[in-house]
């Protein structure tokens, strides 16, 4: 389905995740972050978001464990930055699909 986020028409699934990561921009990220209750995006948030997009582009499977070992963010920081769903919310903000793993 189509959704207008931050003035841009993008394709999203029924949960609001972008289905085409190339349609993403930082204004969209900020709008989704506000909607998800994450608040204003800081450099620390954006570091995670950019890392997620890089990993997704490489086709890597994302887990909470691999994030903690990435060197980009610690597990604690990730939970603090994206309260209520560290991997789910950061992925949504990054414009990539919802992570499918259990870890």
């Amino acid at each position: 389905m189509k959704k207008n986020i931050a003035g841009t028409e993008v394709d999203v699934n029924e949960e609001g995740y972008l289905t085409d990561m190339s349609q993403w921009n930082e204004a969209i990220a900020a709008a989704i972050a506000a909607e998800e209750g994450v608040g204003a995006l800081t450099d620390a948030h954006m570091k995670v978001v950019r890392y997620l997009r890089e990993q997704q582009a490489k086709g890597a499977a994302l887990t909470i464990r691999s994030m903690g070992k990435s060197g980009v963010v610690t597990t604690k920081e990730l939970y603090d930055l994206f309260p209520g769903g560290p991997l789910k919310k950061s992925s949504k903000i990054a414009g990539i699909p919802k992570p499918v793993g259990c870890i």
Partner: protein
Amino acid sequence: MSTPDDKQPVKKICIIVSRGSLDGIYPALIMANGARMEGIEASLFFTFFGLNGLANKTLDHMKVSTVGNAALNMAMPMLGMPMTMPFPTWMGALPGVSAFATSLMNREMEKLDIPPVREFLELISDSGGKIFACKLAMDMFKLKKEDLMDRVDGVLTVGQFYEESAGAGTHILFT
């Protein structure tokens, strides 16, 4: 009929871990970590043989239970054999079978990015999950707080565990 109003979210999950085999503890760790990833509060209460998973001397050497496990045929695909291939339960008692099954399972879990027990407990602790040990079981097994891994948040009585579990939207699970 379920209506949207019935769908009250799970707010907190308290998991009682009473088994001390590798296959006994992992489901609880996975469920607790999964809860935190969904923004659900999680606490783990280790009691009886579950303390095997918190004691510094034992937690890095936990084994898959092969004796009396009638479902070991499920491990056959890890060896490239069909799941329907029988694995008689008496074979589980042979020397080395438990160690072999353990190394097999550890290998498969590593492939799925499931951490070893100690790292998993640290991950859950870092994510804000709480780890508790049962006082009565500690007394029974002659364990002291300093015998347990450093992420343990406390040694609780049963009553204290129920206090810790208080609140609407809390679920208590026994494993």
